[in-house]
């Protein structure tokens, strides 16, 4: 590779900067050039808005430490913040983890008192969760039956996960680290399917009719 080709290319976009990093030089070279490139950037005024930076590492695998270092260098420039560091390369472990998070496990069984079912990703349960039973997923929980026990969605910390049930009569609901006892104790006898989610305005778990789930997902796709 000719030395003239810059190792760090900076492109300006409407919503911020994109830093394209060369993926064939050594990481030390890259860091050195990144530092010089960023330091020669023009002067900013203090009241300028922060500029978001997307870092594209191309076909280079970045370890956690590498990412932290890049993050640190960019943060040192007062006017810049890192929106995203992306790379085309994942370790096999990361890919496995990703696949797990996205898979849907279907189970046809009763979760009875004293039993605990734990899955990675989403779970579709055809059956009931009885009082004293527990269902745990890192993703969403869909119960085609009565939920009378404990359900914990977003186990590894994502509070955008939901819990749905044909009959929502839980003894406890948890989404990420938000805990709630039956959030809708007056909903006795409703034959409307419901779902539970974290209401970000109040930080608590709310229950709504299943139909509203559609609106919610519509909003979240619009947002992103």
């Amino acid at each position, binding site marked *: 590779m000719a030395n003239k080709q810059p190792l760090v290319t900076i492109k300006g976009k409407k919503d911020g900067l994109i830093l394209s990093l060369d993926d064939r030089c050594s990481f030390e070279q890259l860091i050195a050039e990144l530092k010089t490139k960023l330091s020669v950037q023009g002067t900013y005024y203090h009241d300028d808005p922060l500029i978001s930076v997307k870092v594209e590492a191309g076909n280079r695998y970045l370890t956690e430490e590498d990412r932290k270092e890049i993050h640190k260098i960019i943060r040192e420039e007062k006017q810049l913040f890192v929106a995203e560091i992306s790379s085309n390369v994942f370790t096999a472990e990361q890919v496995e983890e990703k696949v797990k998070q996205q898979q849907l496990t279907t189970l046809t069984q*009763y979760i*009875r*008192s*004293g*039993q605990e079912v734990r899955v990675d990703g989403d779970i579709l349960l055809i059956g*009931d969760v*009885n*009082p*004293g*039973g527990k269902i745990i997923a890192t993703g969403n929980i869909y119960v085609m039956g*009565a939920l*009378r026990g404990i359900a914990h969605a977003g186990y590894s910390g994502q509070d955008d996960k939901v819990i749905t049930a044909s009959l929502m009569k839980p003894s406890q609901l948890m989404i990420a680290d938000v805990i709630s006892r039956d959030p809708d104790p007056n909903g006795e006898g409703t034959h409307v399917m419901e779902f539970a989610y974290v209401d970000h305005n109040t930080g608590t778990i709310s229950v709504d009719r299943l139909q509203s789930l559609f609106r919610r997902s519509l909003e979240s796709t619009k947002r992103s």
Partner: protein
Amino acid sequence: MGEAIVITSGKGGVGKTTTTANIGTALALQNKKVCLVDTDIGLRNLDVIMGLENRIIYDIVDVAEGRCKLSQTLIKDKRFECLKLVPAAQAKDKTSIQPEQMKAIIDELKRDFDYVLIDCPAGIEQGFKNAIAGADHSIVVTTPENSAVRDADRIIGLLEKEPNISSPRLIINRIRNHMVKTGGMLEIDEILDVLAVDLLGVVVDDEEVISASNKGEPIALNPSSRASIAYRNIARRILGESVPLMSLDENKGFFKKVKKMLGMR
């Protein structure tokens, strides 16, 4: 080759032993060869309810430890030739017998009897594991209370994991119709909704059951008691007949009472 049925509940005091004694008696009334096995070692009761306490010489631990033959422990019932009891030991505890030994004993009994009814101790520990070791079928007894239903649910979960035991059937014991009506007791449908198992029978709460147990004569022998009829119906269902559930309404009994007063019974 007969079949072995374990009668269990998880919670104590819901009527496992009474149920065992009465189903056994009701099956014997149908001329089946029945053996009752008490596995509640250390807290044996089945012999008391059957009125056979003073006939015990050898018990199930003696068999397991090789002090006697299995046939020597069999106690013949006072009333039926075809009904036998294998008593539990009273001076030992649950660890004095292993599941494999229990299975061997039950398998041996199955050769000679049509039905082997195993009375399970309360709890889910060693005693429970012993009791279910040789069973082919299971009956879960519960009462219409939340705590008993919870424990029944736990037990059903454990029984469903056992590969050799068919899916459990349920007996709801000591139901009081007036309390169900006022909402103070769980309804049958409510219980079945949660437990999702087949219902084998419903036994009404009947004071006569207690006095009969105290006398050492199972209530199933008394043809006029409502609980007795319930147990007999359960026995018939075990034999494969389809018997409709008895109505719980006590008003129906009024006419009978009049008849009784007039000496028509």
